[in-house]
């Protein structure tokens, strides 16, 4: 192909074919001299998605894998439910004053302000960590 001087308009009209793999020496020549067209060519190249094919079986493959993960999720939910019930029971015992009967030494220990403050602090941190995990979607 004979080299010829292209205007920007002519150059830009050839970019699509050039990006698709056609040999365009006159366009290359133009791009070495024209930064604006070079930028336009880069932009069009970035906009062209790579050619990639999704395998036909892909959806079923993922769904099959998901099927094997469900029991784990259920187990996690039971652990969480158990922890909530345990904490509710503890709070109820404390609130009604029954904790002294169930665990007198524990009641005495928790009666101290510093210990109470430390326990409350640890529980707050744990609760915030749990909330962060639940509320902030971090995949």
């Amino acid at each position: 192909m004979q080299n010829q001087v292209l205007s920007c308009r002519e150059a830009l009209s050839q970019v699509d074919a050039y990006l698709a793999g056609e040999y365009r020496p006159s366009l290359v020549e133009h791009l070495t001299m024209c930064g604006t067209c070079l930028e336009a060519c880069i932009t069009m190249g970035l906009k062209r998605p790579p050619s990639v094919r999704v395998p036909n079986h892909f959806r079923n493959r993922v769904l099959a894998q998901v099927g094997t993960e469900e029991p784990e999720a259920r187990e996690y939910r039971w652990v969480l439910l158990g922890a909530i019930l345990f904490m509710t029971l503890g709070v109820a015992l404390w609130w009604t004053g029954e904790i002294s009967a169930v665990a007198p030494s524990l009641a005495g220990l928790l009666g101290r302000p510093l210990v109470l403050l430390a326990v409350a602090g640890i529980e707050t941190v744990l609760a915030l960590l749990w909330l962060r995990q639940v509320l902030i979607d971090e995949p």
Partner: protein
Amino acid sequence: MEDLADLIESHQAMVFRTLARLTGEREGLEDMAQEVFLRLFRALPHFRGKAKVSTFLYRVIVNVVNDEWRRRQLTRRTVSIDDEEHRLLHPSPGPEILLAQSQFQEALNTSLEHLALRDRTILTLHYQEERSYEDIATILKLPMGTVKTHLHRARERLKTAMGEWTSQCKTKC
């Protein structure tokens, strides 16, 4: 499960092409795409719809690619790709590397692969996926100004690399 099947159907093409662009590879894409949807599945119970599913998926894709690079870097006993050092490990491709690519699109893809992953992601999301600055900022958890700065710098790097390529190509391609 039905929801997930629909989500896979409607987003799988986007997931594959974004992964292909970010990794610059075709092999191993299916495994990474599966990991993306598995992470989406695990996150669905916590997903409150405050973000669009597509925005959320892009974030998952970026995390999966990040993890994959970290895994490879660890294999090579080098540093994390999030670091500034990543750029030192992946300098701009030399003219001899670029010249091995006889076509503009190939050379552009090679140049893109030599950018830091964050810059490559921003370029991909902005141009290929046509996401707004705001979306990109949300996906990457970066301030919008930082996104714009990285986009500008990455474009300049690409322009320099491709300028060198066209100059060399004019005489040797």
